[in-house]
């Protein structure tokens, strides 16, 4: 538990409006990246991030630090907002499988980043949506397993196991040549 976050929530509730601003400063870029990895569209990301923090502000009275950290709470809001976004788009695909949408249909050509994710997306697409989210949160966001578990659901141990299975799946699927070829592409 991040006691600083809990303290800021308490202060906000007690009338210190600026305390929410501090929480915003701490999390806005993290949430931005998290949403970006799922949506890959700058305008959509900004809409969703705005929605996340306005919802957080509205619901902050219902945040219960006993049930989990503020961090996990706001990531869950972001996760649900992304699902809502794809619902709104009326995508015909399984909304749980949103990672595919990000890479396949709205992905590489829209990226501001210089790297091409096409090959990595092939790796990650062999994983279940939950495994992918765990890999992204652990490897790209460097998030602790406990916190990932709070966001995606399940225990810390189950998240660790899912992560190791994901890595094993990729290795078995593509073997050493796949990884080496990819490294050359990335060169």
């Amino acid at each position, binding site marked *: 538990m991040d006691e600083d976050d809990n303290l800021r929530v308490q202060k*906000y509730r007690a*009338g210190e*409006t*600026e305390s*929410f*601003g501090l929480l*915003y*400063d701490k999390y*806005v*870029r993290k949430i*931005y*990246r998290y949403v*970006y*990895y799922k949506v890959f569209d*700058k305008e959509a990301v*900004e809409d969703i*991030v*705005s929605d996340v*923090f*306005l919802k957080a*502000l*509205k619901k*902050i*009275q219902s945040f219960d630090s006993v049930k989990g950290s503020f961090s996990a709470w706001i990531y869950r809001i972001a996760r649900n907002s992304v699902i809502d976004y794809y619902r709104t788009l009326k995508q015909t695909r399984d909304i749980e499988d949103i990672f595919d949408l990000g890479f396949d249909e709205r992905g590489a050509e829209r*990226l*501001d*980043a*210089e*790297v091409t*994710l096409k*090959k*990595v997306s092939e*790796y990650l697409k062999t994983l279940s949506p939950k495994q992918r989210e765990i*890999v992204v949160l*652990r*490897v*790209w966001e*460097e998030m602790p397993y406990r916190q990932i578990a709070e966001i995606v659901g399940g225990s810390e141990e189950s998240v*660790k*196991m899912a*992560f*190791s299975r994901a*890595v*094993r799946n*990729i*290795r078995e699927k593509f*073997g*050493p040549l796949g*990884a*080496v070829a*990819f*490294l050359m592409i*990335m060169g």
Partner: protein
Amino acid sequence: MNNKIEDIIKELYEIDPTLREHKNRLRELVGVLLSSKPRVLIDENFIRKLKEKIVVGGRTERGNSRRGLQSEYSWWAFRFVPVGALAVLLLFVAVRLDSPVSERTLMDAPSLKQDFAQSETYSIARDSSENQSENSIGISTQKPGWIAELDYISASEAGYVVISSSDDPTPGNIMGASGIITQGTTGRTEIKLYRAMKNGGEYFAILLKDDGDGVFNFSKDLPVTDEITGRAVSVRFETRRDVGKDL
């Protein structure tokens, strides 16, 4: 990045020791995953503007929370309206048994009585884009239900807006009250009602002045009267199920 690769590999070994058999391939794979992390360019202008919006929203949200508490108090208070009204009615009848009938019909909402007793007609809700006077309420035809939505409230002093039923041609029982409204113009405001408005009904939105304690009390917070007409600042409005469909 090498340290990160080693950290993740170490974790993986702890979770699944058999992965040690594929040490080199594992290192390559984790390296690929790490190096392919998208470089997300965050628009700092967006971050700054959103923060401004959030901070303003935070102030508003806190205000609404206070109003929410206020409304809860109001709901509690309203439970006792019939009892209080009956007590006042008995007292009033005992003291002024010979009073005109028109004065006795307003006892359900005693604080409103004196101001509405002189009023003969009330305006039906109009387009709220009309000029806003210093003390005025904007409310259009409403959908039946538990919420009345005001377009604006303009008040020269802090106060409340109450929604009441219509005891034609005067207001009847209070059905709900806003939280405290500060001096000036307040935008769109929802008032939760403790009794639902029915389709095809007529109701009143009435501006009251806070007596200074910041707590709504229907017997102390009196209607605001118009300086020119001397009448209570109020709007009579209707409810219609199909409101908005013809727009």
